[in-house]
């Protein structure tokens, strides 16, 4: 390095390299962690998905696409796919709408608005284990507060929630909506700051009321954010595991068993890493498709703006 004069590199090139080294130094810690804990395991799971392996020292055997054939032939796996999609359908839209409404309401200069914002954000940072356990008590079918209220307002046979195969997923979905709407509210609040006040003023002059302003100014102006929130929520719904694991354990029967619960069970109860990895690849493909939609959508929205 000291014999710079004999170097073949121009000083311009040398500066570039130096800058690059500094840059790499900054991303190195993260990169090492990412490689060891994310990138290599992901590649490994691709390999595993075409292998037969039980987690022992015995060598893996190549089985081609047999694992995929096996899981798609499995009634339980097809069930988990449909449960996961049902869950996503039940969760995404209500979360999105409620987050938007909360954001619009809390964007006003109310007294104590910070307290309300904190209150709605709080479920997001609360421990999911505690949240799941408490909601399970609230949903208790015989003497839980939720059903007591339902009986009080005149519903004689309230649902039995987590011990009813038709309502268990609804219960999980409600908790998820409650937990995550605060987070997306914050996302919307940030986006609301970006809408120019002059638009609302112009609308007021033209005599638009609050609803018209919301529908014709706020909602269209927030479209890119809504798109982002929707994609994020959908991906999150497909990856759901913890809430289901805590609240229902996939039950009753397997009525709330989701894709990730299935992967977990295949891997760590049956020790069949091949089919488990194949399931993970299916999940990967689903999330990849959603992400690609987001990428192309993002280009479109940001061109428009």
């Amino acid at each position, binding site marked *: 390095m000291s014999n710079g004069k004999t170097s073949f590199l121009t000083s311009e090139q040398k500066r570039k390299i130096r800058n690059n080294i500094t840059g790499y130094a900054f991303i190195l810690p993260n990169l090492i962690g990412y490689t060891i804990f994310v990138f290599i395991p992901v590649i490994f799971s691709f390999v595993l998905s075409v292998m037969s392996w039980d987690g022992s020292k015995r060598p893996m055997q190549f089985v081609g696409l047999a694992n995929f054939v096996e899981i798609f032939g499995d009634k*339980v796996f097809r069930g988990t796919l449909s449960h996961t999609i049902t869950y996503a359908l039940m969760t995404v839209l209500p979360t999105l709408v409620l987050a938007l409404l909360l954001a619009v309401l809390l964007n006003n200069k109310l007294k104590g608005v910070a307290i309300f914002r904190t209150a709605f954000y709080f479920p997001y940072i609360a421990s999911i284990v505690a949240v799941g356990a408490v909601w399970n008590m609230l949903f208790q079918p015989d003497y839980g507060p939720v059903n007591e209220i339902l009986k009080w307002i005149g519903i004689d046979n309230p649902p039995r929630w987590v011990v009813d195969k038709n309502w268990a997923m609804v219960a999980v979905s409600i908790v998820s909506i409650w937990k995550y709407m605060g987070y997306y509210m914050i996302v919307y609040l940030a986006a609301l700051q970006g809408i120019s006040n002059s638009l609302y003023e112009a609308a007021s002059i033209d005599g638009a009321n609050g609803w018209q302003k919301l529908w014709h100014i706020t909602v269209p102006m927030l479209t890119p954010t809504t798109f982002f929130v929707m994609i994020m929520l959908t991906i999150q719904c497909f990856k759901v595991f913890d809430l289901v694991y805590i609240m229902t354990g996939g039950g009753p029967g*397997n009525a709330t068993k989701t894709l990730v619960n299935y992967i977990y069970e295949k891997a760590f109860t049956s020790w069949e890493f091949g089919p488990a990895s194949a399931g993970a690849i299916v999940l990967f493909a689903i999330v990849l498709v959603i992400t690609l939609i987001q990428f192309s959508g993002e280009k479109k929205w940001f061109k428009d703006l």
Partner: protein
Amino acid sequence: MKRRKFVATLMVGIMACSVLTACGNSSSQNQDSQKTSGQTSSQTSSGEADKQSDSNTEAPGGVQELSVTTWDNESSPQFQAIIDAYEEKNQDVKIKIIDTSADEYNNSLGISLSAAQPDPDVIWVKDMGSMLQMADKEQLLPIDEFISRDNLDLSIYKGAAEQLMYNGKSYALPYRNDWYILYYNKDLFDAAGVEYPSNDMTWGEYYELAAKMTSGEGSSKVYGSHNHTWQALVTNWAVQDGENTVVEKDYSFMKSWYEEGLALQDNGYIQDYSTLKTANIHYSSVFKNQQCAMMPMGTWFIATMMQSQEEGETDFNWGIATIPHPENTEAGYTVGALTPIAISAYTDQKDLAWDFVKFASSEEAAEILAKQGVFTGIPSDTAFQTIASAERFPEGESNIEALNYTHYSFDRPLDPKIEEIRTVLNEVHEMIMIHSYSVDEGIQELTERVAEIKGW
């Protein structure tokens, strides 16, 4: 220029080091937390915990370290009593306890064995099914060589050691043995003026008794009996006669047992399955709070009750009776399971591990455990006498008689696919008990899904 380059290189170096040391720190923290968990779980060995921290596998002074896996170690004396006794006898050996909660035990053990590390050395096996899984994956050390080398007399286990063999090889010795008996609350029977459950009852008679003992309403209701949410509390009685197991091509033999289990629940003689499930109620609290007059449960609950009476947590009279029997058998048919103890195939201390296993399943250990109210793989009259003469064991000859059995069926057969089949059994059990399936639908699903797993 030189300096900046130097700084950049230095930074790379520092960051790389900090990553490495961060890993190093966290792993040593792990060891610390293990150490403290060992400390809290054992009062006697708390002073030795400090020594453990600076000795990984072999400490100076010839002290050897042996690692063992346990579950819920602090809630039961079953492991600690043996570990303490072994350390007492072998001053040059330190036992490192790797404790996991019972629910996570099989998963976490399976993952650590997949890493093929020299630790753990000795494995207490929670379910016989998981022993088969591990044996299948060649993660357990076959111990036949050791048995023949030491001329170990397996006849003291009265056949249990042979039952643990798999593909003609021994992988484990029986450590505990537990079977189902009927617990009852003497005070509640006295108050109702009803005779205590006898040691010779059919399930039909038991149902009548449960109906008779149910009283009260609302929160003060006392249930005649109590079935925990385990599928075993229905399927065990279906396999009690030894004619069938829970892995069959046709599950119609379970029909009448599910119908009776549902009848008990729907008549309000036992608590509702969905209530127990959603409120996550543990069976011990139901019995301890005197909310049920009877409860079929494993013999492991004797030690729990004795401990509870000892600590003053409960203060009522209780007793035990032989588990009721089906019409087609005589009294004394029971259902149970063994807790084996095995050696990891990856251990670096085979001989020491074997020595520990041999001790843990010896008559000497059986004597120590009997004092704690724990039944071992060595059934003997002296062990029964020791348990029965314990201070908190219920008084009366019938309680000692209740411990005898004439026929013993495993709650689940030794089938390498049993853990997977259990998932199906549990799911179907839940669906039947919450009335999402009719009994027939449940039995059909069981038959189909088990056939798929078994490839029939």
